[in-house]
């Protein structure tokens, strides 16, 4: 006999509303259902009402933690569409900001993972070490989050070179703390018992689900947009793609920790190699056309698509956050595990639910789904056809 144990829509495990239905037999998960659609904000539609220059501020708010990656992917999509050359200094600045973001995002995850395991000391310590990173973000950009730095054709603000020595000093401190955390995770036998061999995502399953970011890199597949399709200054500095082949939650934690060390390395080199120069190419007009842009967010590849008809607003903007691809892997990883493990496995993809939100149509009287994906697509195609007929195409 199976019981349904709900995780969500409001649960201490989740920072955002989301519903997982765990079908459990005793404490063993035999099936899992995910229900999204609790926090749909219609961001893509909002973007169509903003000018190209305003959209970065909107997409920044898709996710408070990936608030540099979404605008990066967006401006790259527009630059791809309009064939814009970005000055080198702006590229370095983009890299610095996105790496600072990766640092604080991974430290945030580490703390939360500790909290989910009941290890609140790790929670507090990781967040304490995260604080200097946020301070640096504030000093360099004016904000701890939502930096408002990205702009089509460059960056909005230059970095103040007089701050670099103190930033580099704090990077050294962070390096020390990070190494301490790596030691703490890899040496703790209780953590090994909790994390090793838990939530196995085989390389085949990872490929089949199209998993991204640290989730797939922990399954031994070294995919990274930063190296595979270099953007910003990632091909101008020297760094390594981290991947391990343990395929479990432990591997995902190790990948994130080691990536933090890589981020420190990248930031140091970018600050070192950066030369004074232009930061904006002064884009005036966006021609008609379409473009794509992607960036490696802390959770995986963020993808943006933009279409322009030559006016000052995009007529179509599409964003896909990495959790959209990573979330379904829970079917492969949680089934057969216990409730205890299921919680940390769900958390191990570092899910970001608001970014993943898609529309769903429900019947309010029964609470059941009224239309499925195929029906929705059919409806939208009919609507498009109807519009075309009205416009006389």
């Amino acid at each position: 006999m199976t019981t349904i144990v709900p995780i969500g829509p409001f649960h201490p495990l989740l920072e955002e509303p989301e519903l997982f239905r765990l079908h459990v037999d005793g404490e063993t998960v035999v099936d899992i259902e995910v229900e999204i659609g609790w926090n749909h904000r219609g961001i893509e539609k909002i973007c169509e009402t903003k000018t190209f220059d305003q959209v970065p501020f909107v997409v920044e708010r898709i996710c408070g933690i990936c608030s540099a990656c979404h605008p990066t992917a967006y401006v790259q999509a527009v630059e791809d569409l309009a064939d814009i050359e970005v000055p080198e200094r702006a590229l370095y600045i983009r890299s610095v900001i996105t790496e600072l973001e990766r640092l604080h995002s991974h430290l945030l995850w580490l703390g939360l993972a500790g909290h989910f395991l009941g290890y609140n000391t790790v929670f507090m310590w990781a967040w304490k070490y995260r604080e200097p990173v946020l301070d640096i973000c504030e000093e360099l950009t004016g904000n701890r989050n939502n930096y408002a730095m990205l702009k089509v054709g460059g960056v909005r603000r230059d970095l103040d070179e007089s701050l670099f020595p103190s930033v580099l000093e704090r990077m050294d401190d962070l390096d020390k703390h990070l190494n301490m955390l790596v030691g703490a995770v890899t040496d703790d036998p209780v953590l090994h018992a909790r994390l090793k061999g838990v939530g196995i995502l085989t390389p085949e399953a990872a490929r089949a689900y199209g998993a991204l970011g640290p989730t797939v890199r922990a399954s031994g597949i070294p995919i990274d947009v930063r190296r595979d399709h270099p953007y910003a200054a990632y091909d101008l500095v020297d760094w390594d793609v981290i991947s391990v082949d343990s395929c479990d939650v432990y591997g995902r934690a190790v990948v994130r920790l080691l990536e933090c060390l890589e981020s420190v390395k990248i930031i140091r080199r970018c600050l070192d190699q950066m030369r004074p120069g232009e930061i904006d190419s002064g884009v005036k007009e966006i021609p008609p056309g379409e473009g794509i842009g992607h960036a490696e967010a802390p959770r995986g590849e963020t993808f943006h698509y933009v279409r322009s008809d030559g006016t000052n607003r995009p007529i179509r903007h599409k964003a896909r956050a990495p959790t959209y691809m990573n979330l379904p892997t829970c079917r492969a990883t949680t089934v057969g595990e216990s409730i205890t493990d299921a919680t940390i496995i769900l958390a191990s993809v570092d899910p970001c639910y608001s970014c993943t939100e898609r529309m769903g149509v429900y019947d309010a009287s029964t609470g059941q789904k009224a239309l499925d994906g195929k029906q929705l697509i059919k409806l939208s195609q009919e609507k498009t056809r109807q519009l075309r007929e009205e416009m006389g195409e």
Partner: protein
Amino acid sequence: MTANFFIALLRFLIFPGLLFTAVVGLVMSWLDRKVTARVQWRVGPPFLQPFYDIVKLLGKEVIVPAGGSRMAFLGAPLVGLAGATLAATLIGTAAIYGGGGGFRGDIIILLYLLVLPSLAVILGGAASKNPLASVGASREMKLLMGYELPFILVMLVPIIQSGGMLSLGNLLSFQAQHGSFAASLSGVVALVAVLPCLQAKLALVPFDQAEAETEIMGGALIEYSGAPLAVFKLTKAMMLFTAPMFLVVVLWGGFGQTLGSALLGIGKYVALLVLVILLRNTNPRVKIKHAVRFFWGPVTALALIAVLLALVGV
């Protein structure tokens, strides 16, 4: 007769029973929160915070889940509180009045009384008709079966060493004459074996599976609100005082009759408590199957070694 009854009632309700243990227990839970906060680079709560929490909860609405068993749901916290209070009364009386305070066999009664708070959690969780609460209750049951075996084995050590004494008072006077059990090899091994059991009895990380906030949202206590929840919290705080106290009395020489020895006893209690707090802050929650395996494996083995050593007489 009536005078004796009143004295017993006073001991149960005021000192060293309900009132005294509740106040000291809440102060100790403040200590727990404060030390935890300092370890985690936080400021921590003000001294009276645990009292505010209880008072505030007492004034909140009590909601009984529809379909649950009302009697069992509301009765369970009282069972736990009664158990913890009675245990505190017996231990405190024996600790203060020495040989005259206890009665023959009270150590066995105490072993039962100390289980009552855990049983109350199981009862309350099962009565609340919530799937997460039943998961919590079943975890508490497994944990209980896990740690009770080594806990009872350890309790054999003082009994064997004293030549079959079954009263707290007698065990205390025996220790006063011959030195505390913890001074012997078997006593040290017993104390080491009983520490994880203490942690589990207090339901603290790494053995808080029954509550596990981020997994099952408070587990057995998920449906509790208002006064019944306050009673559960109070019981937990009282156990923070009672359970380590029990170990100090049974294994570690008690509090003696002089001021110096009493202070030494309090020092021992605080040392145990701080050890518990540090353990809870340097470990993640383990899985319930690992916990049971741990208690039935290495901890039971260690407890058995202690019993064997006691039988040999070291």
